[in-house]
């Protein structure tokens, strides 16, 4: 398990795959990911493409770890905007309307055998019923 600062944001792949549809295979492949610094991957003992579990005070989610092409950023994990990232975010907005979507404390652990939930299962988990 490693401690990181989690940031979310736009990625080119997220932008392109979003246009292919929120339920497309491509969207899940490109957005249910966590980009990590190569050193952090080593620390975790996880190779690019294996699943990891990301936890914050607000929630947890399984996504695929990938080696960042925008390194170095040791200690910082990046998840593209989307339903997987949102689960990890606080709802408090500190009187601005904006939840803190960047700069959240998180932990990451290997989760090689755990499943990445598709958007439908993810919503079902969040709202507690069939959508």
């Amino acid at each position, binding site marked *: 398990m490693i401690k990181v*600062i989690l940031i979310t944001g736009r990625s080119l792949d997220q932008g392109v795959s979003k246009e292919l549809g*929120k339920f497309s295979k491509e969207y899940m492949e490109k957005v249910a990911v966590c980009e990590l610094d190569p050193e952090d991957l080593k620390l975790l003992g996880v190779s690019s493409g294996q699943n990891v579990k990301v936890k914050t005070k607000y929630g947890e989610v399984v996504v695929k770890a990938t080696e*960042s092409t*925008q390194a170095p950023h040791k200690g910082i994990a990046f998840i593209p905007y989307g339903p997987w990232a*949102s689960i990890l975010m606080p709802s408090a907005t500190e009187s*601005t*309307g*904006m939840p803190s979507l960047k*700069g959240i404390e998180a932990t990451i652990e290997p989760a090689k055998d755990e499943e990445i939930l598709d958007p439908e299962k993810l*919503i079902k988990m969040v709202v507690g019923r069939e959508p």
Partner: protein
Amino acid sequence: MKTIRNVVCPFCGSLCDDIEVDVEDNRVVKVRKGCAISVTKFTKYNEERIYKPRIDGREVSLEEAINEAVEILANAKYPALYGWSCTSTEAINIGIEIAELVGGVMDNTASVCHGPTILGEQDAGISTCTLGQVKNRAELIIYWGCNPAHAHPRHMARYSAASRGRFVKGRRERTVIVVDVRKTHTAKTADIFIQIKPNSDFELLTALRWAVKNGELEQEEIAGIPAEKIEELADMLISCRFGALFFGLGLTMSAGKARNIEAAVNLVRELNNYTKFVMVPMRGHFNVTGANEVMAWATGFPFAVDFSRGYPFYNPGDTTFVDVLTRGDCDAALIVASDPVSGFPAEAIRNLAKIPVITLDPHETLTTMISKVVIPTAVVGIEAEGSAYRMDAVPLRLKKLVEPPPGILSDEEVLKMILKKLKERVK
């Protein structure tokens, strides 16, 4: 086949207006000049389309769906109207009329994007300009907490770092500085990269302002950056003839939020004592700036406008959609051209799933999944025309390139129908 030139791309706030689109048999067959996202948007807009209106998952006629939407809005005590950044200015205008009529709260996606930018600007002002000015004159460009290589792929080539201007001819005549927590693909093209510690933008902006004003800093290191480097940077900013600061959600979403923007505004203001300096927010969705413009000119406030008192009331943190939802205050929602279920915190989504939601969208989204009423609409900028505002608040006209699928109307037309029936209903 016909070629339509000077098409405005309806994806990001750069609103590139030089796209060429080949259309044959009411289909887009080829797109030239667009970035990867633009080409995908223009050619794949029929993926995951919705073709029929639905109530509780059952296909219905447009009239039935509109009647149900009107009933929901008319019966709600405090409905929320949200989205608006991926539709036309004209549609947003009708949305405001609906919000006022039903005494609801109307917010746009700026509240989870550059909302804090607006708050910072309202507190401290802004020195800004159009992207044309930057292209023609800016010798020094800073990208702070933004990654145009991913989020605004043609921004650097068309308007900023590598653009060919009238007086500044291209990339070689400009100095490019990137401030970010990661060495992003944008940072890899910069002359100077400042790798800042997460959540310490306020400190660096303030230190930089101090260095601009007073020269030397007392601390050895601020935000992970050696004082010498900050002083050097301050000298560079003062020495350029025209500087532009582009900033993104690295400032608005991390610790400090609106206060970070205020610090950036104050830095730019200080720099204007020595040289010409401007700042421009990197707006995301293609018409999020328009949503702010229209709401500001119609109500006096750019987002988070509450009509429940009978007059427009603005109190971000209270009347913003995430907060309204998290408190469980609204009892119905109209979502237009947005997918809050994909991007909102879980607590907010749980409460949204408890109330009747009406969604207008061309595509299946996570929000349409939890909606009671779904009304499919035309893709603005491809199947429907309208106007949109670029990130520098320059309005451009979106074109209609092809006909929408049979029976599918634009957001503007559907909202007009809802408004007309609501007026009769609440008379």
